[in-house]
């Protein structure tokens, strides 16, 4: 019942970087928390009687952020309600779910809200489906109960495409289940018939078994096999023969021949028809179940912008819908609120967090005259801003429009197996017809034996192995990737990833961590390192700025914990000040801030790197030292670059920063070409131009500004923790911080293509040997059916080799 350890938060488990909050729980034990948010989440959980949550060893909950006041507007939420009789249903997309324990906790906390009748959260998509009584409870109460635990709730209306995809999957599942059921019955009859074929069987029993086979095989061919039959019909009409045609021809010819055979006393081959359909349906379902997310990034973008704005009328302000904001309107944006439209600051100074908009995690200082984009969060103090554009034309909405256009323009890829089947299918059908005609006309055999030979040609050529060749390899590759922390969005990503010859990387947040870290500390004479670190940590630990966090983290790593600090003041964009225990005033901030505070001798020499930031500290007006901070290159970036360039892939760095900074970082990780000062449109343009010259582009990025380029690249990759819109457009998602996994993903993709080619080559060789034998009439359909099973097994086993690929091996 004790906390994980004495130096980590009882709720979220992060290791303390500052003096923890103490809380004595009901049973008298001391619990430590990293912040008030976590403490109140703990109290919430305990008051609901769910202390058992802390006994679960698989839990990992988000750190609760102390936001000013999380605010949900019932008027906006009501639009998402779905009436269900007396009750209402509300679907909520919950961000921050990482483990089964999160779901355990959320389901219990939500169901304790008055009026909620049932809650169900899907593990895969993180979507909560909540039924509640609208008389007893308002939707905002449910949202608050989720946000109070540190998760990010967002109303969710399932997109039409999701519903279509689900119906498709259910349909496939029904057909496969039915096929398996009937084929199992059919096997019992078929094996008896095979035994009878070799050992002799009474005509009466044989007939009964054949009729029973006909009875169970018919639904398999015509109901379960319907997708293939209709697909074959379509491919005939568009004159582009594909896999479906071969399957349909194989299954239908086996069925028609066997039906004829039942009534004329020949051997039947219903089992071959049913087997083909069952196996290929299984392959299709496996393909479909590879990585699905329910998240729509574009919806998330729209949701990021607040629905309401505070319009200033002289001295009073009133809330209006954001769509009613006209250019020129004066708006009040309070601390903790989001800018609803693109604005220009008129009054007040503050810092804004543009993480969502530009991917830049370091807050930017803004003063009157500066423009701010919709979706930026005001984190320091209230400001008055003038709207520049209507809500629909904001930067964020323009990016969303670019993404939608790029998504629509992306050509859908033809299945690899379909392309192979393109010439193979007509050849097989032509061969079997020719053989049948030859046997009938030239050799002068009866229709029965001639049909039998033609059928064995189709059956031997039939695509069990070919149908499995691609899905089996793709499934093995996807599941292996998943265990290595690489999520592949769909099977065809593998083929595209293996074929890239050009890779573009975003800088901030992708190649670099996107958060600064202390590189070195220089201390002025007369001070000890411990003393400086203690004072710096004490002043900075109340600030939320990433630079401040980096300094506190650095101190904690050197074993220094912050002490008490009074009169803490933030000077937006410049620094902080405070009075420490012994009454000395400590100021921490930029060189400009030092000059303002009358601190002399602030030493800014030795700053070699433009991308570095210096933070100075002064104690009672005396210069104490300097922290040098840098946005560090992500772990594994260098490895990835050397891996990819060894495979002859052209690498480029794209950045919104200046050309100099971009070149510096590129040089550091061994990349030759860097493009600085890129806007989202320019990134998209560069991807398009490169594609026009016939190259296949891989784009790696994390921010909203990369989304259009990600959407139009041949393959796109994001890391977890990227913006939702980037993740939505990513074909490959790397979990964790190690960028080198992308190199492994590329290697898996190439190996998978090798295995697929081997599988197809095997199926092909098998056909080259089998078809002539069948044409000579030396291979009866029974042996063809056995050969089919053996070759399917071989293909599956070959695909399993992919499961042995190791990371960085």
């Amino acid at each position, binding site marked *: 019942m004790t906390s994980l350890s004495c130096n980590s938060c009882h709720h979220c488990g992060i290791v303390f970087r500052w003096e923890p909050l103490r809380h004595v729980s009901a049973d008298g034990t001391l619990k430590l928390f990293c912040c008030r948010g976590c403490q109140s989440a703990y109290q919430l959980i305990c008051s609901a009687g769910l202390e058992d949550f802390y006994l679960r060893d698989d839990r990992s909950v988000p750190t609760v952020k102390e936001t000013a006041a999380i605010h949900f507007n019932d008027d906006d939420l009501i639009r998402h309600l779905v009436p269900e009789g007396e009750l209402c249903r509300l679907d909520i997309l919950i961000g921050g779910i990482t483990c089964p324990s999160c*779901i355990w906790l959320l389901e219990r906390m939500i169901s304790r809200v008055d009026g909620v009748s049932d809650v169900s959260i899907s593990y895969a998509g993180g979507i909560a489906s909540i039924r509640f009584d609208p008389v007893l409870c308002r939707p905002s109460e449910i949202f608050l109960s989720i946000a109070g635990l540190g998760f990010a709730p967002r109303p969710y209306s399932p997109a039409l495409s999701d519903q279509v995809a689900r119906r498709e999957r259910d349909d496939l*599942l029904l057909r496969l289940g039915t096929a398996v059921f009937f084929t199992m019955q059919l096997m019992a009859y078929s094996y008896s018939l095979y035994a009878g074929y070799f050992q002799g069987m009474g005509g009466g029993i044989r007939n009964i*078994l054949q009729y029973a086979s006909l009875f169970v095989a018919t639904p398999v061919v015509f109901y379960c096999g319907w997708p293939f039959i209709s697909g074959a019909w379509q491919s005939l009409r568009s004159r582009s023969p594909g896999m479906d045609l071969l399957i349909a021809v194989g299954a239908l010819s086996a069925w028609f021949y066997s039906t004829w055979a039942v009534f004329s006393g020949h051997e039947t081959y219903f089992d071959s028809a049913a087997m083909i359909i069952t196996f290929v349906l299984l392959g299709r379902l496996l393909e479909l179940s590879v990585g699905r997310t329910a998240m729509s990034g574009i919806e998330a973008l729209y949701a990021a912008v607040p629905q309401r704005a505070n319009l200033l009328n002289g001295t009073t302000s009133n809330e209006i819908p954001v769509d009613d904001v006209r250019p020129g309107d004066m708006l009040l944006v309070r601390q903790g609120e989001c800018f609803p439209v693109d604005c220009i600051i008129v009054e007040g100074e503050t810092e804004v967090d543009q993480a969502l908009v530009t991917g830049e995690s370091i807050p930017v200082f803004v003063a009157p005259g500066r423009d701010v984009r919709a979706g930026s969060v005001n984190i320091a103090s209230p400001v008055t801003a003038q709207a520049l554009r209507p809500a629909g034309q904001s930067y964020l909405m323009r990016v969303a429009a670019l993404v939608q256009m790029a998504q629509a323009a992306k050509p859908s890829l033809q299945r690899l197996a379909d392309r192979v089947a393109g010439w193979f299918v007509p050849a097989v059908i032509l061969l079997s017809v020719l053989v049948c005609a030859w046997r009938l006309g030239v050799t002068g055999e009866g229709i029965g034996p001639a049909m039998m030979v033609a059928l064995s040609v189709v059956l031997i050529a039939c695509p069990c192995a070919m149908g499995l060749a691609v899905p089996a390899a793709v499934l093995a590759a996807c599941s292996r990737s998943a265990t290595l922390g690489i999520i592949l969005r769909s099977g065809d990503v593998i083929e595209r990833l293996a074929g890239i010859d050009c890779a573009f990387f975003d800088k901030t947040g992708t190649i670099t961590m996107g958060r600064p870290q202390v590189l070195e500390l220089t201390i002025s004479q007369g001070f000890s390192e411990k003393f400086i670190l203690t004072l710096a940590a004490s002043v900075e630990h109340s600030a939320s700025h990433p630079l401040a966090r980096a300094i506190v983290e650095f101190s904690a790593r050197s074993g220094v914990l912050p002490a008490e600090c009074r009169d803490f003041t933030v000077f937006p964009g410049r620094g902080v000040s405070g009075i420490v225990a012994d009454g000395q005033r400590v100021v921490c901030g930029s060189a400009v801030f030092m000059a303002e505070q009358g601190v002399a001798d602030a030493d800014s020499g030795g700053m070699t790197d433009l991308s570095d930031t210096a933070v100075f500290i002064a104690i009672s007006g005396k210069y104490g030292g300097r922290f040098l901070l840098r946005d560090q290159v992500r772990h594994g970036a260098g490895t990835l670059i050397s891996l990819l360039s060894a495979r002859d892939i052209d690498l480029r760095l794209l950045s919104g920063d200046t050309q100099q900074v971009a070149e510096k970082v590129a040089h550091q990780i061994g990349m030759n070409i860097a493009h600085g000062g890129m806007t989202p449109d320019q990134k998209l343009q560069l991807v398009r131009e490169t594609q026009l010259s016939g190259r296949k582009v891989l784009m790696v990025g994390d921010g909203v500004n990369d989304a259009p380029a990600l959407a139009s690249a041949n393959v796109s990759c994001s890391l977890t923790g990227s913006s939702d819109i980037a993740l939505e457009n990513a074909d490959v998602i790397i979990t964790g911080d190690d960028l080198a996994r992308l190199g492994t993903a590329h290697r898996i993709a190439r190996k998978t293509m090798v295995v697929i080619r081997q599988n197809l080559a095997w199926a092909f060789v098998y056909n080259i040997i089998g078809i002539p034998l069948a044409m000579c009439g030396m291979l009866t359909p029974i042996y063809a059916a056995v050969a089919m099973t053996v070759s399917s097994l071989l293909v599956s086993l070959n695909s399993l080799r992919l499961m042995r690929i190791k990371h960085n091996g």
Partner: protein
Amino acid sequence: MDESLILLIILSLSLGAGCWLIFIWAVKKRQFDDTEKPKHRMLDDD
């Protein structure tokens, strides 16, 4: 002999059809929508 064979075939078919109907019911009831959660749920106490 023939009669008993027919009887057995009908018997096995109806047994199988029972399972098949349960399967259809399960798909329609969306039992297969989330196959990830139940395996964690069994570890919960309540």
